[in-house]
């Protein structure tokens, strides 16, 4: 299982110190969700401050992906309140679009658009959603491609890139919308071990700039280095939440201890 391996060694990297503000970026209050009869999220309460980095871990099926996908309404919650950037998520399509404009997301399988070039992938949302002139959008796209260190790939199609490059393009694509919050749904789980590092480095540099981030990941080295708080979820509930040092060195709940003993060697 590659996802349990931590590629970034935790000891020799300095921790990122960008203090979060007291302003709330995302707030989940008593959120419940069911898939048919199955109760997948149970009473989730979470407050994320602006500039805060949260890492969410837990076994498969624990609801961690579902939780962050509720934040940009890729999944609908049935009970409770979710407030993103001061806007409450309801079934109102206008509000959903408004929130999605401000929240970037990266997926496990990148979800790049294979029929468009890298540059077109990046400029699509700025042009159609932000109504930016094409030229400005391309400039912006090249800026972010440079930032993820692959400007030379702009004219290629996603299928011609390696997994790590594709995931960095996906990050750049999300950044082109100048999001206030970034969601990462297991961004390195589908990658070969050699490519995990380049993606994590991109995410670390994003963290250094003070981006509000919610990451579902099993990269514990990344969690230690970047996170302000680590959340452990199981069976649709938040089991434990703590700052990384305490979380890893002194887990409280039995379930957390078991989980950590299995993924840390």
């Amino acid at each position, binding site marked *: 299982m590659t996802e349990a391996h931590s590629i970034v060694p935790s000891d020799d990297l300095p921790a990122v110190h960008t203090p979060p503000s007291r302003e709330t970026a995302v707030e989940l209050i008593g959120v419940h969700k069911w898939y048919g009869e199955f109760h997948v999220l149970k009473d989730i309460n979470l407050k994320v401050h602006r500039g805060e980095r949260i890492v969410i871990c837990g076994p498969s099926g624990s609801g961690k992906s579902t939780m962050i996908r509720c934040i940009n309404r890729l999944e609908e919650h049935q009970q409770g309140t979710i407030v993103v950037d001061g806007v409450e998520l309801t079934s109102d399509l206008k509000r959903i679009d408004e929130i999605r404009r401000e929240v970037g997301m990266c997926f496990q399988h990148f*979800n790049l658009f294979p029929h468009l070039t890298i540059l077109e992938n990046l400029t*699509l949302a700025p042009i159609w*959603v932000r109504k930016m002139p094409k030229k400005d959008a391309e400039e912006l796209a090249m800026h972010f491609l440079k930032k993820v260190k692959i400007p030379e790939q702009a004219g290629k199609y996603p299928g011609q890139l390696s997994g790590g490059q594709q995931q960095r393009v996906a990050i750049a694509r999300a950044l082109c919308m100048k999001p206030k919050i970034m969601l990462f749904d297991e961004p390195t789980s589908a990658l070969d071990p050699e490519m995990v590092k380049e993606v994590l480095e991109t995410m670390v540099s994003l963290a250094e700039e003070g981006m509000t981030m919610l990451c579902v990941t099993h990269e514990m080295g990344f969690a230690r280095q970047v996170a302000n708080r680590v959340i452990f979820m199981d069976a649709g509930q938040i089991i434990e939440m703590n700052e990384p040092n305490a979380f890893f060195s002194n887990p409280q709940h039995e379930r957390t201890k078991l989980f950590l003993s299995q993924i840390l060697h």
Partner: protein
Amino acid sequence: MSLTFDDGTFIRTEMQTPLPPPRRNVGAIGWMRENLFSSITNSVLTLLGLALVVWIVPPLIRFLLVDAVWTGSNREACLGPEVGACWPFIKAKFAQLIYGFYPAGERWRVDLVFFLGVVLLVPLLVLSWPHKRLNSFLFFVAYPILAFILLTGGNIDASNFLFGHFGLIRAVAGDAGVAGVRLGFWLDFLLTAALCVAVAYAIGRLAAGSGRGAARMTAYAFAGLGLLTLLWDIDFGLERVETRQWGGLLVTLVIAVTGIVTSMPLGIALALGRRSQMPIVRLLCVIFIEFWRGVPLITVLFFATYMLPLFLPVGVNPDGLLRALVGVALFTAAYIAEVVRGGLQAIPKGQYEGAMAMGLTWSQMMRLIILPQALTLVIPSIVNSFISLFKDTTLVLIVSIFDFLGQLRAAFTDPNWATPVTLYTGFAFAGIVYFIFCFGMSRYSLFVERRLNTSHRH
């Protein structure tokens, strides 16, 4: 450098350099050995295939070219014991095969329509050509309007729109008119438009708080309809040619092109509707699709031509060709819808999520992300439907519309050309003509498929 594996450990000291592949089976002999005679069974099959070619091709060439008659003015030329294809028959009937009974003096109009069609279609088909937007507008919007005016003569008799039916307008405007345009009709039209815009405004206001958008949409729709009607209503001095007089390749192409151009957007809309979250929309689309897929085209044409008038009020009698056109278009749309649905289902969920997460609206997502990929996937099946539509146009014969094949069969009855080979010649010619169109579509679709295949490019 020798390495032994006896002790179970190994450390590479030198990296291998890439070598060219082994040179075996090269040249024509090698190719034949590999592809034609690789085994006993394959050798036998190859020889059988060769025998089949020898058996079919030379007689065909002899009939069509060597023994064929090329000149002559009546059946006398094509009588004889060893006579091949009777090409003078085709020459004599050529105009009829192309234009049907279209008046001889007006055939330049058909030629012009054909010419414009080719001039506008070719740049549209060459993918690398610029100005696609203008080109599509000209071909899909301006061309049909112009073709309608040219082929029918325009000057439709627009007399009553809405109020006219209640005898309200004539009293005011009388029968005054300019250039074939009746003023009463336009007074009627404007009044109706104003009324509809007002109603749309009121409904929009009640339902969504602001009626501006709804009113504007309605106004645009009426403006478009008005412009269209006006263009068709003006008397350009062209002689009116009833669709009953149309025929031959003209009718075949009119039905095929209209069918293709209208069934495509309709089919896409139906496919999207069938996958919609809204249960009533979904149900309506399913009913529509299953209905049209469940009845044969012949039944549709027959119903549209002979049964429909029984249900329509007296005096309302849509043109025969128009009825066939609508039938063919709706019939094909149902098939296209299912093909497109197959393409939509093949698009991974991640593409939808990727698009939604970026804040694209539903229509942007469909237009920019999902449909381009889905349609590229189903090009072979779509072209399949179009080819079968092209060939199915011959069925309009049973409702007394004489398409290309219909005209050909009518030509067979001419005693002037009654020879033993007339039938064979005619059908051979028809076969060649249909083949050219269908094969052309098929090759073009392969070209487009290769051009658009970016997703699997590595």
